[in-house]
């Protein structure tokens, strides 16, 4: 999983959480408001119908109506108080919950603080039952219809209040359900984010391990370099000590100095190869590369190496099966690689032998084979030929002073262009190096 995906998941989760939270809040607020409005309208309609019955003193009718209304699912209780607070009519069974009774002693006991409310009608009250169920209560006074009393003389019985209490069960259940959904989503998000964190930490661990390994490899390489330098320096020092401290006959001193000088000269190619090896990595990223015509380059190199091969009586033969497409690389790098491989092939192929260079390609890659009839590489050495400072035993016999870095550099160069190099060999039969380069 990429960092981008993780960020997307995080952002989307947060957005969904915010939206979910907003929906629940909206539901809680406006859902109740809607129920309240509906209740107010409903209560108003009941009040209008009851008003007439009350004015006519038809108490039985009023009771029946109230009880019928009280039977409805959503209605918790419906009651009519008189002005002293005494309950005149009540739907006795509560379908929803127990309405917490208040000892109302007349309207003023509750409405003392704001007389205005008595006239305007009090806004809905929200209660909770013992079961934590929410109820909304709406009161409407019969009191404020002054125009009725203009014709009908007010009697004690009709001067009262209609109180309807409605359950908020449904809306609360919807809110509850949505909250559950939101919690579920939160849980999933939390799990996802923890998984991402775990993945990231393990990725970091992997990167860390790789870095540690790379560092160890570098240290190991430095140790090898130190060892490679120590050998010639030790020899040089010993030879020079013989002279400066006057060991042995004078006649041998010039020989010692010459040996020291020779070894000094042989350190130079080692140092140069080390520099090449170090810079191959760094330069690879911003190397000057161009489209190279391998057909031309190979012909030029064959011309260049022919003299050396002829000097050893080795035949050099180039076969390009079809015109090779261009390759994108630094021209000097490709020169270095091929010269190194051809030079090795000439060096390790006995007189009368043959070196074949074969080039072919498909649309994606170019394959170059360099095949010799040389001494070959022993089985135990073949897996190490690209290792730094590694030299096969039979190669040491032919050339004592190799740095053991040539093939390591070659491999690094080819890999820096996205290519690959492999080797097959049989002792005393020959060696074949195969280079694969991507088409530009």
């Amino acid at each position, binding site marked *: 999983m990429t960092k981008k995906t993780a960020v997307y998941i995080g952002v989307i989760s947060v957005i969904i959480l915010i939206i979910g939270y907003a929906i629940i809040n909206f539901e809680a607020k406006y859902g109740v408001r809607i129920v309240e409005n509906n209740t107010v309208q409903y209560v108003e309609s009941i009040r209008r119908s009851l008003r007439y019955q009350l004015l006519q003193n038809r108490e039985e009718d009023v009771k029946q109506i109230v009880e019928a209304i009280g039977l409805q699912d959503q209605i918790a209780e419906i009651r009519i108080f008189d002005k002293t607070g005494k309950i005149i009519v009540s739907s006795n069974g509560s379908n929803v919950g127990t309405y917490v009774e208040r000892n109302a002693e007349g309207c003023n006991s509750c409405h003392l603080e704001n007389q205005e409310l008595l006239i305007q009608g009090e806004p809905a009250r929200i209660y909770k039952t013992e079961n934590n169920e929410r109820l909304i209560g709406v009161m409407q006074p019969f009191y404020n219809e002054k125009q009725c009393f203009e014709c009908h003389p007010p009697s004690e019985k009709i001067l009262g209040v209609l109180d309807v209490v409605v359950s908020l069960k449904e809306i609360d259940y919807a809110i509850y359900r949505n909250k559950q959904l939101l919690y579920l989503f939160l849980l999933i998000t939390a799990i996802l984010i923890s998984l991402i964190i775990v993945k990231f930490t393990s990725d970091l661990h992997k990167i860390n391990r790789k870095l540690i390994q790379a560092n160890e490899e570098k240290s190991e390489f430095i140790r090898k370099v130190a060892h490679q330098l120590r*050998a010639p*320096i030790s020899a040089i020092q*010993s030879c020079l000590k013989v002279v400066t401290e006057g060991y042995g006959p004078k006649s041998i001193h010039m020989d010692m100095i010459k040996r020291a000088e020779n070894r000094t000269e042989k350190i130079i190619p080692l140092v140069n190869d080390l520099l090449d090896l170090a810079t191959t990595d760094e330069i690879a990223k911003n190397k000057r590369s161009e489209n190279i015509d391998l057909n031309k380059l190979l012909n030029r190199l064959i011309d260049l190496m022919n003299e050396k091969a002829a000097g050893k009586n080795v035949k050099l033969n180039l076969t390009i099966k079809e015109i090779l497409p261009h390759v994108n690389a630094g021209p000097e790098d490709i020169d270095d690689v091929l010269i190194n491989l051809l030079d090795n092939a000439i060096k390790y192929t006995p007189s009368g032998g043959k070196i074949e260079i074969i080039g072919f390609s498909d649309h994606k890659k170019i394959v170059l084979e360099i095949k010799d009839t040389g001494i070959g590489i022993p089985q135990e050495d073949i897996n190490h030929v690209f290792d730094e400072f590694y*030299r096969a*035993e039979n190669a040491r016999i032919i050339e004592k002073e190799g740095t053991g870095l040539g093939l390591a550099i070659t491999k690094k160069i080819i890999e820096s262009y996205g290519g690959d190099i492999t080797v097959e060999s049989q002792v005393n039969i020959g060696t074949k190096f195969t280079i694969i380069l991507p088409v530009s």
Partner: protein
Amino acid sequence: MAKILIIDDDNDLTEATKVILESRNYEVISADNTKEGLLLLESENPDLLILDIMMENKAAGIIISRQLRKNPKFQKLPILMLTGMREQTGFFFPGETKNDTYLPVNEFLEKPALPEVLLEKVENLLRK
């Protein structure tokens, strides 16, 4: 006069060592590979062996020294091991914590060796 055999694939170093040892009248013979070295060991019967630890990509010196310790003929032959690889083997110089099973030699000498140190160690080993 004591006879010393040097087995080391670095010819220049061997030549210089030879001159230094010969100046103290030791007889010095040398081989630059293990095969030849073992042949000389059999035929020349040297009194001391100076052995390079790393030859031909391998720790050939370690292998030879172990072989010699198993051979009754060379069990007592003093071996001075020349090494440029202190870091890689984890030995402590001069030989206090050396492991006789792992590397059964009498003395170590780290390259590059100063002539007087070399001569002193050779003398000590031959005196024993």
